[in-house]
């Protein structure tokens, strides 16, 4: 059984990245997760970045998981389609709302209906090219998504993938079990704001069975970044940060009155906004740095998928549960402020240390192993007994993928801490700025604590661990388990 997750729009896609890291760190639970991205813009830079890490996760994890019962890289993150789902069909070369809704034909056949449509959508919106998203105008997207779900059938490019989400839900609920569907996106943009209230509800509403057993949760990302719009004027209509708050103040009451099919929603924003220096309307250029709010969105998903339980039936009728988050200090966000930090922090801290050591001390050695015999103790105790061929491409690919993943994770940490409006203080990222790392930084890597062992001690500990063969482990599996255990 899989739970499902939809990332809708740019902010949703960026949330995927920390979500993958959480999964890698073992903070996303054990259940597999079927993922699908929703976006008109398949070239969106944020999307590509997230999908890359998702693919890397899956490579590290492998199709047949080689980490056994390790918490790391535990759930299967199944991307249902490499391409994001979009209601636009491939034939739509320059799609607009008018073309999607067949305005010309509608006007000829039903003038009154067309008049209402024209009343609700002024020409500038109707003629806005939507190939690259809905450009901060979710009412356009709402019409598109609702129309796409006409009659319960899902139409558009990649319709099969959205249908597969529905099938996942139907399959999951077939035996009377609850399946969780989590959606994440911003409510202050175009695609996310349009899709959050429409797509999950359309999916559930269109289920042939089991709709009542779908637990629907969502992360509504509230305004948290701003950018200069000067360079965007040439690119047509776009989201305008000056209007974010104004628009949000209209949107939230709407959600309050239209809960859609959600039972649990996490509202996450920021009072201090990140400044994104390079803004783009869409495509590859739209690639934002990691942000705390997206991280919190991933944590919300983790909470929903791992921790949250639906309220008792007697509580129904009061709308979805709404969760917000607080931090202790005005200027800084620390581990104290991380939700479920008792569950989350150890896993992330351990995984951080794991990545640090793997990159700094093991990966270079493992690379060398391809060229000859490696005489390191840990190699002798955790690698050689597993019977791997260090020269094999498979092994070297495992090493490389893991190293890449660890590197990405640590860079993400660094990004998260830099340039945010709010001072994030979770990891001493200064230790990560110079390569190779200084092992001396290892014990104080996680802010607010001093790890009991230094790097050498951990390495020694790994080396000293007895090799315990586990048929579920293969390749690097035994070593990774040992390092993870030693880093915890």
């Amino acid at each position, binding site marked *: 059984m899989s739970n499902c997750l939809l990332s809708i729009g740019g902010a949703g896609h960026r949330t995927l990245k920390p979500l993958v890291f959480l999964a890698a760190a073992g903070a996303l639970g054990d259940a597999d997760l079927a993922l699908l991205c929703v976006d008109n813009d398949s070239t969106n830079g944020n999307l590509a970045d997230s999908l890359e890490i998702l693919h890397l996760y899956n490579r590290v994890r492998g199709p047949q998981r080689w980490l056994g019962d390790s918490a790391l890289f535990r759930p299967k993150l199944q991307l249902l389609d490499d391409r994001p789902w979009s209601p636009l069909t491939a034939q739509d070369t320059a799609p607009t709302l008018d073309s999607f*809704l067949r305005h010309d034909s*509608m006007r000829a*056949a*039903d003038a*009154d*209906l067309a008049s*209402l*449509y024209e009343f*609700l*959508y*002024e020409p500038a*919106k109707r003629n806005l090219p939507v190939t690259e998203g809905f450009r*901060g*105008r979710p*009412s356009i997207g*709402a*019409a598109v998504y*609702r*129309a796409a779900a006409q009659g319960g059938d899902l139409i558009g490019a990649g319709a099969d993938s959205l249908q597969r989400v529905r099938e996942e839900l139907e399959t999951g609920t077939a035996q009377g079990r609850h399946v969780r569907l989590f959606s994440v996106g911003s*409510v*202050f943009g175009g695609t996310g*704001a*349009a899709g959050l*209230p429409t797509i999950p509800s359309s999916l559930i509403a269109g289920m042939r069975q089991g709709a009542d057993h779908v637990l629907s949760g969502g992360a509504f990302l*509230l305004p948290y970044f701003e950018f200069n719009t000067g360079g965007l004027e040439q690119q047509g209509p776009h989201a305008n940060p000056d*209007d974010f*708050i*104004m*628009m*949000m*103040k*209209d949107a*939230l*009451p*709407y959600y*309050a*009155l*239209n809960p859609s099919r959600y039972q649990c929603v996490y*509202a*996450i*924003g*920021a*009072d201090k906004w990140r400044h994104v220096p390079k803004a783009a309307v869409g495509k590859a250029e739209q690639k934002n740095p990691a942000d705390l*709010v997206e991280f919190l969105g991933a944590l*919300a998903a983790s909470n929903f998928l791992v921790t949250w339980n639906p309220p008792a039936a007697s509580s129904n009728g009061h*709308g979805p*549960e*709404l*969760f*917000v*988050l*607080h*931090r*202790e*200090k005005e200027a800084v966000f620390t*581990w104290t*402020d*991380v*939700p*479920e930090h008792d569950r989350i922090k150890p896993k992330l801290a351990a995984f951080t240390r794991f990545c640090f050591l793997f990159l700094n001390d093991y990966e270079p050695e493992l690379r060398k192993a391809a060229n000859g015999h490696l005489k390191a103790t840990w190699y002798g105790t955790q690698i050689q007994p597993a019977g791997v061929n260090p020269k094999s491409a498979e092994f070297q690919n495992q090493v490389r993928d893991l190293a890449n993943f660890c590197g990405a994770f640590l860079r993400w940490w660094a990004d998260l801490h830099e340039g945010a409006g709010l001072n994030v203080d979770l990891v001493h990222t200064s230790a990560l700025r110079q390569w190779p790392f200084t092992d001396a930084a290892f014990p104080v890597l996680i802010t607010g604590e001093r790890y009991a062992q230094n790097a050498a001690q951990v390495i020694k500990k790994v080396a000293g661990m007895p090799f315990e063969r586990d048929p579920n482990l293969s390749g690097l599996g035994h070593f990774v388990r040992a390092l993870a255990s030693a880093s915890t």
Partner: protein
Amino acid sequence: MYPMLPVAETTQDELASGKPGEWDKRHWGDLRHIASRTRSTADARDRIEVDLIPDVWARLILFSNALFNDHHPLHKPALAAYRGFLALLALRIRKHVLLKATSLHLGAKDNWPFSAAARQHRHGHGVHQLYADTNWNEIYLLRGDGGSLLGVTSPLTLVCPAQGPTLKGLTQLPNSWFSGAEFQDPSAKGVLGDEDRSLLAAWISELKTNLAKYGQDPAVVKWHRGHSELVGLLSKFEEDLGGSKRAEAVGSHEGSLRLGTSPYRFLAVAVKAEEARLDNSDLILDTTVPLKAPILLPIRVSDTDTIIEPPSDPSKLCVVTGTSLLDINIAVWGDNRRSLAGRPLPGDAEWLDPKTLFLDRLFFLKGSQQRAGLLHARGQRDVADHFSEYPILPFVPKLNDLLTPTDIVRNVRFSVEEHPTGTVVVVKLRLPLKNGRAVEVTHTYTSDQQTSIQQMPVLEVWPPFRRNGWKRYNTFWWSNSDMTFTADPFPGAPVATETESLPGAQQIRVTQMNQTPDGFLLQYPQGPSGRATMQNAGFILLKYVEITSPPTGVWVAGVDFGTSSTNVISHAERDRETPLSLAQSGPLRVVVGRDADRAEALYKYFLPFTPENTELAETSPFLSFLRMRHPENNEFREISAAHIFFYSRSHNVQELSSGRLATNLKWEGQSKVRSEPYLRQICVQTAAEAAMGGAEGLNWFYSLPTAFSPYMRGEYRKVWRLISRFISESTGLRSTEEPQQMTESFANARYFTHREEAPPVVGAVFMDVGGGTTDMSIWQDNAERCGISIRFAGRDIFLGPLFHLRGRLIKDFTTAMPDRIPSATEARLLSDQTEDDFFAHAEAMLRDVGTALPQQLHRQDKLEAAALPVRIGLAGLFYYLGIVLRHLEQAGLYKRSLGGVFVGGNGAQLLHWADGGEYDPHGPFAKVLTECLFAATRWGDSAPKNVQIKLSGRPKQEVAVGLVVQSTLVDAEEHWDDVISGEPFTVDGVAKPETDLIGREDLLKAEVSDLPELRAFFAAYAKAADSIGYPRLNLTTDPLFTRALERVRQSMANQRTQSAEEIELAPPFITGLQALCVGIAREADRSRPAKLGR
């Protein structure tokens, strides 16, 4: 704590509390709390965008949010639009906005993608829906004129207005209310008038009451707070409008809006349309001009060139009841003058944009026009002085339909201003309105909008005065250039317009009007090609001569219509008879061009002007010549189609041979096509002078020769009746009597008796020698014994012989008076081929030279040749007079006594020619005449001695004066049909002596076998002439008498071809005398020493 949420307005709120590191569970409704607590960074906006609301109905939702939330950035425009749209619904019928509602169902069977996206399922849209029975899937589209969607019903706010530039169909609304893209708050000052505000407030009150009652059923109210807020919002609107002061309900179910049974139906009610009336209109033109219908003058409130004085609140200025000036959207005034901005005007009322009264260009006349007969607006003279050119009133003709000339000059103001771009002329027009206001329009003419007209035509109006009852006007326009303006008189259409094209590109247009022209509409060539394309150049107003004379009662006028010239004597009753002098009533000079052009054009082609020295004015008698613009025509309306030829040696000598002159008018045959217009002009000019002299009425007297046939007399009686009526009707100078007819001889007698102390008791002969006839009346014992008119007068005595002697004599005339008889006149006289042409030219010449010519000829010893036929002719007349006296004596009507013979008339001047240049009653020629007279009477020694033959003291005027003089003489019997034969004759074989009467019936049958009396006369004359030493006549007389007899017989034969009614009395003696005079002249010419070339 610090929530991970956007910045809040305050740090102390419920959401600020929580535990860090935990997901803080909240109520779902706290999303609203998050929204409300968040500090807004956006300023208030005036544009409603559809943005973050992820719903097809976002537009309605956002509008609802903005409307009900005072702090929403879009609250102000949303509220304004909502109020503006409610006002539209309320006042739509009153403001003539046609609204239609279409119900639109978003049915499940509808497969359009948009329909599917918009359709709401089961429980409907959960957003703040006010009432349960407003269905999201049934929306009413509210359309305006042309089908434009103006708004839709909304379950959230009842109604949601459209917005943006595509919003059309509301052009009837003023900009203050509807900007073309957005509705404005009608409670703001200046948007609606007081009446509309009050009505709207009452309508809102009614809507509020209806909703409040509806909301008393909790089952139908879905969003209670919204319902309360809506009612509160309406209350505030009502309050902002000043509250509802109307006790009665103002709503009605008029119109065609059908909005179902939900609370939408409350919106279908509209304020009743008010009947459009003009009672209180503030824009009605206030004018003394009688208009067919009221004229409204709307203005553009935003146009600074058009203002209403004193300044007034446009919303308080009533166009028609229920419509203020603010309601009239300038964009849609339209072209229909009976409907303003879609509002039909009551009755026949029309509207007019006062700015359209101005021309785009300002035209100037050359020169300052100081001496022009123009009425000036304020400042117009100053501008003329500034530029040395006179600005024309730069308005379209329509202005004259609205204001009197007096009002125009009072309400137009010119000024000159110096602008950075040059000197401009500013023209302001003030149009008075009822209720004491006025519209003032300003038009500024920059230098490139000014045109200077350099070629000036002659433009005149006759008569030059404005007088109550005077309806006969003629305008005269002459130019010899294509690049000048044309001028059309106004008001009214011309009765007739005559044009002439003459050599030298001369153009003439004479227009007859039946009302006083107020001015002229000018047109000027649009390009250098001349009059092919003309443009309006404005108009000029006339300043007429003021009649300052006090009322002088009914005048009398006597008209002696002569063959050569016509005399008119007119006077007020208490005044002495004076010949008509055109000393005051000459044409009004409208514009000033070249003086020489004016003088020549007027004399040649119109009426003589009034000279500065009134003694030089044209004075009666006037030549009996008519100049015809188109001689080939058969109708000659006086002045316009034909006009009296006022001869001027300086200006119109050439016209004598233009072929356009008609002479011999008096003796025109059956038709009076020329004589009547001649007389009509004489009379209307007489009336004009009389009017200037204060006349209040005018009675007419006219004379006719007894030589006229009864038919001719009857025709002239008709003509004079028509003329009298014409004068009464067209000048206001009514006649108190029928035109009175007299014989010329009787009128002559009246003159001599009362003005020359002639003795009608002893015995007196009054002889009027005219151009064509000589009238004699013989009086004794204060009674007329005989009156005879014969066709033998000046032309026969002098001009006829002169025609035959012209080659010999005219040169002498020219030599004698070269300054008065130009060589052109000489050449013309010499070249005339017919007697009629010669007579016309000679009479014009003689009128000019007067008695000076015979005197000068006498001094130069060149008179004799011309004098001879004159002496014989005049002596023959006296001989005939002697025969008449003999007849009277034989008939017992006269005793042998004679106080004198009193000679008058134009032909009497011939006495001077006969008597050495200046007639002496005691001189030799008087003796010749006496001897011829008594030779015929055969009184022998019993003839009275010292009979005086006296020339009139007022030559030519006798008959005319006699017509009007106060006289005790009684014309007991008219002697129209009696002449004395003068020669023996036979009728039906019966011999009649020369003293017998010969009537018209006789003339049809009479035979004459010889002319013994003519021979006797010639013998008597020769003897008398010989006795006083006149040069002896060296003539062979027999052939002369033979030809004379032939002439008499021929004449009588001709007469026999006519009916008795048509026969003009021509005594055989006189016919013979006429032939004798011509014969002698021919003989004299034949015997001259040398031929003078012609």
